[in-house]
């Protein structure tokens, strides 16, 4: 029997960390598909924070990243291929506006106060949104309501 694989071209296994990360995000996409799509956008915006929760609940997240995240989540809302992606995109775009207002006192959306409050209340009531993000939005809601 001849050697079926030339050892000089035989691919080496990937590093443990690479394999772990890959399996972890694949599993997350199976367990929580909508949250996973939101996290993938968050990773694109800020790989060091990596998830929507980390990006949106860290008071030190730069405002520019929140602006970018809002734009990309907004695009997921309008162009996402699945309905749960579109819903999560909508929720997280509002959450980005909430984080900008809560942590930086900046308005990064075109909502007026009443529209923003209504959107926040709707997102806070959505159990599909990660709990930490809903808590942050409640804090923004209280700040906005004065």
């Amino acid at each position, binding site marked *: 029997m001849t050697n079926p694989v030339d050892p000089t071209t*035989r691919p080496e*296994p*990937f590093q443990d960390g690479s*394999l772990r990360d890959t399996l972890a995000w*694949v599993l997350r996409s199976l367990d929580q598909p909508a949250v996973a799509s939101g996290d993938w*956008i968050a990773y694109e915006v800020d790989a060091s924070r990596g998830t929507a929760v980390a990006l949106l609940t860290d008071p030190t997240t730069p405002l520019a990243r929140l602006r970018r995240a809002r734009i990309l989540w907004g695009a997921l809302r309008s162009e996402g291929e699945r309905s749960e*992606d579109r819903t999560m995109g909508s929720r997280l775009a509002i959450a980005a506006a909430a984080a900008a207002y809560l942590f930086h006192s900046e308005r990064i959306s075109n909502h007026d106060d009443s529209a923003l409050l209504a959107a926040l209340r709707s997102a806070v009531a959505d159990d599909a949104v990660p709990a930490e993000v809903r808590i942050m939005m409640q804090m923004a809601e209280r700040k906005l309501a004065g």
Partner: protein
Amino acid sequence: MPRVPNHQMTEPSHESSESHDSHGAHGAPDAVRTEREMAPRTSDEAAVRYWGSIYAYIRQSGRRDEEARELTQGFIADVLLGRNLLGRLDEKRGQFRTLLLSAVRNYLADVYRFNHAARRHPGDGRIVHSDDGSNDTLPDRQSPAPESAFHRAWISMLIRDASDAMRAECIANQRDMQWDVFESRILRPMLEGAPPPSYESLMARWNLTALSQVSNTIVSMRRLFASHLVRGVSATVDTSPAGARGELRELLSLLEGRMP
């Protein structure tokens, strides 16, 4: 039109491109290989598909490279093909990974016993595998190193398979841009540590006009990769999605050292 970059992932030398190129349009049932069809169909395919994992176990058990390759060849000829281990895959007897691992471990034990018997009773004309001073040791069943090496190689194989299948599907469906964005922005940085290109450079390369075209492509392609990986895993366990998900969880646990 931008040129499609060459496939730069580490290319498995063994995967037959025709098997993946046979994928038709996404969603066309008659053109997409099922989980069972993704399993090796010939002994040659099987030999090359599982070579890395078998070799990794044997090499990590203390054998030198040359001897490990010989033993890998011997195992494939005598056990994988000779005893029709692959046939058990078709019988859906649970995880093929654990079956294969157990078979390799037993094979090394058999080799050890055979070599030591041959040393005690030379002259029976049979070949002694390692009589040249190599490290012929009985596999240490307490040592995690050979099994860890086996699992790393196994998961790497699954990821390469998923990557190859996805690439073939994208190219067959004129989704070159989507593949390039995913490969260059996600796959190569994650697996090889390559620096990811900026959104702006990807937009320029593919004449895109909005950042969201890149980000939404990445969401779609990540999901497609996940589906290919699940399909590949399903080929090694029972065919239910729950079976594949359970196997993925177990593989992750093994990598994280949460399982013996």
